[in-house]
C-alpha cells in the first residue's frame, strides 16, 4: 500500500488523465464491458425464461376419454367420474388424474360439469338429496344445471363436452377452468 502511494506521488498515474482521448477510451471500454455482460445474460436468460414459461403456451392435446359404459349410469343420477389427463408426466402419480361430475339426463343424453368452483377452484360436491352442488371453501352453491344458486361464484360451473361412442360415455379432456 505505502509503496503504491509513494510511486503515484512521483509519477502521475496515466489512468487519472482527463484528456478527451482517455475519457473516450474509458467510456468505450465500460460500454463494451456492460454490453458484453448484457449479451451473456441474454444468451443464458432466454433459454431459462423459455423453459419456465413454456407451459403457458403449450396446449396439451384434447382427447376423448371413456369413463365407462352407458349402462353404468342411472338416468337422473349425478356421479363423480375420473379419467387420465392427456399429457400426464410419468412422475405425476395421482395428480395425473382428473375428476368431473357426470349426470345421465336421459337415455342417450349426458352432461358433465367441472369439479372446480368458479369462485376459486375448490372442489364442489354434489349433494344428491338437496339437488345442489356445494363448495366447501367459501360457501358457493350451484343448482343442478350448474347455475349459481348462492354465494360468491361469479358464474356457473363449467361444462365439459361429453358424448356417447360405441356404448361408452366419453368426456373431452379440458383445461381447468380459470374464471
Amino acid at each position: 500500500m505505502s509503496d503504491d502511494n509513494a510511486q503515484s506521488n512521483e509519477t502521475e498515474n496515466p489512468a487519472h488523465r482527463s484528456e478527451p482521448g482517455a475519457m473516450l477510451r474509458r467510456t468505450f471500454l465500460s460500454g463494451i464491458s456492460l454490453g458484453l455482460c448484457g449479451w451473456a445474460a441474454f444468451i443464458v436468460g432466454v433459454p431459462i425464461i423459455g423453459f419456465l414459461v413454456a407451459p403457458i403456451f403449450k396446449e396439451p392435446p384434447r382427447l376423448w376419454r371413456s369413463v365407462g359404459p352407458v349402462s353404468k349410469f342411472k338416468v337422473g343420477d349425478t356421479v363423480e367420474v375420473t379419467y387420465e389427463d392427456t399429457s400426464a408426466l410419468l412422475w405425476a402419480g395421482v395428480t395425473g388424474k382428473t375428476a368431473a361430475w357426470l349426470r345421465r339426463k336421459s337415455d342417450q343424453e349426458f352432461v358433465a360439469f367441472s369439479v372446480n368452483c368458479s369462485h376459486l377452484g375448490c372442489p364442489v360436491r354434489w349433494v344428491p338429496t338437496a339437488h345442489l352442488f356445494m363448495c366447501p371453501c367459501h360457501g358457493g352453491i350451484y343448482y343442478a344445471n350448474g347455475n349459481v344458486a348462492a354465494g360468491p361464484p361469479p358464474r356457473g360451473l363449467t361444462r365439459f363436452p361429453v358424448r356417447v361412442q360405441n356404448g361408452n360415455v366419453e368426456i373431452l379432456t379440458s383445461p381447468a377452468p380459470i374464471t
Partner: protein
Amino acid sequence: MDVLRYIWELFDDRTGASEVWKRTAGHLVPPGTGWWYVFGSATLAAFIVQVVTGIALASVYTPSTESAYSTLQFISQQAAWGHLLRGLHYFGASAMILLIGIHVSRTYLMGSYKYPRELNWLTGAVLLVLVVVMGFTGQLLRWDQIAVWSVYIAAEQAGRVPFVGKALAHFILAGDQVGGATLTRFFAFHVFFIPALIFGFIGIHLYLVIRNGISEPPKPGRPVDTRTYRAWYEKMVKREGHPFWPSAAWRDVTFGVGMITVLVILAWFIGAPHLSRPPDPTILKAEPRPDWYLLWYYALLALLPHGIEPYVMVLGPLGFGLLLILLPLLANKGERSAWRRPWAIGVVILFWTMIVTLWIQGKKAPWSPAFAAKPLPASVIRASSGPVYRGGQLFHSAGCEACHNIAGYGGHRGPDLTTVGDRLTGDEITIRIVNGATNMPAFGGILSAKELNDLVAFLKSRKTQ
C-alpha cells in the same frame, strides 16, 4: 499462545476481519433503543432456523407429485427427529411472519422509515412480500390434498388479473391443470429462487442499517429535517451512543434465543402440521384451508360483497404494495413520534384488528356448508309422523341444514331457525324458501308442493318452548 496470536494476526492482516467487526458489530447505537428494537433481528434468527431445518428436510423430501406425500409421511412418522424438524420448520415460518409483521408495525409507528432510511423500509417491504410468498409456497410443498386445491386457489386468483390472468394462472399450475410439473416448480421457487432473493435483500437491508445508523427512539416535537438530520445524528450518536455489540445486541440475542427455544418446545410438543388426505384431485371430499397466517385472507374472500371481489383480489395486494412503496417517498420528513401522528396509530390498530377479526371468522368459517351435519333427532323435531315430522326430515335432506342451524344442529351461513316460527308467518317462510336470497338458493324449482308444505309446517312449529 504466541503461535495462535501469530496466526490470528496474519489472518487479520490478510482479511481485515477485526476492522470489519469494529465497523459492523461495533457501530454506535443511539441511547434508549429498548426491547422494541429486537423484532428485526428476531425475524433474521427465525430465518436462520428456516434455512437449517429446510436444508435438513430437503435431504429427505422428494419434490415429485408422485412421491412427495409419502416422503412427508416418512419424515413425520419414521425418520429420526423428522416430526420435530417439520414442526420446527412450520413454527419457524409462523414466527417469521408474525415477527416481520411486528417489525413493520414498529418501524412504521416510530417513523423509522423517514429520511435517511427510506431504502431500509423499501428493502424491508420486499422482504415482507418474499416472506409471505415463502409461507404460501411452503404450505404447498406439504403436498397433500389441501396443497393441491390451494394451487388451484392461487391460480384462480392470478386469473383475475386483466389480460395476462390466464397466462399467470397456467404459469402457477405449470400447465393447464395441477399435474406432474406443478410441485417441482414450487419446490425450485421455495428452495432456491426466493431464498436467494431473501439472502440478497437481507444483505442490503443490514448494510443500510449500518450505513444510516439505527434510528433513535422518536421524541415528540423533534421532526426530521432532511438538511440537518445526518449531521445531527452523527454528532448525537458519537456523543451518547453505545457500540451495538454488546450494549444493544444482548437484547437481540436474548430475545432471539428465547424465541428459538419456544419454537423448539412447540415443535417438540405439538410437532409437524397435520397431513390431510393424499394429493389426489379426484378425492372431492376436501376442506381446503390455508395455514393460519393466510386464514384471514381466506375469510376476506368469503365475506367480500360479491361484486367487488375481482377488484379486491387484484387491486388489494397491488394497492398494499403501492402504499408500502409510496410511504417513505411521500412522507420522509417531519414528526416521527407516533403521538404526533395519530393516524399512524389508527392505521396499525385498524390493520391488526382487521387481521385478527378476519382470522377469527376464518377459523369458524360459518359460510362453509356443514356437510357433516347429522339429521335432526326426534327430540328436536318433536313429532314422529305427519307434515312436521316429514318437514324435519327434509330440513336435513334438502340441504337446509348445511347452512341453517336448529337447536345446535347444522351450519351457520344463514340465520338460526331454532325459533323461526316466532318471527315469521307460514307465508313469509314460503316466500323465502321459494325465492331464495343473495346467499340462499331458490328452492321453488327443487321442492315439490307437498315437500314445501311439509317444510313450512315444520319451520312454523319452531317456536320458543
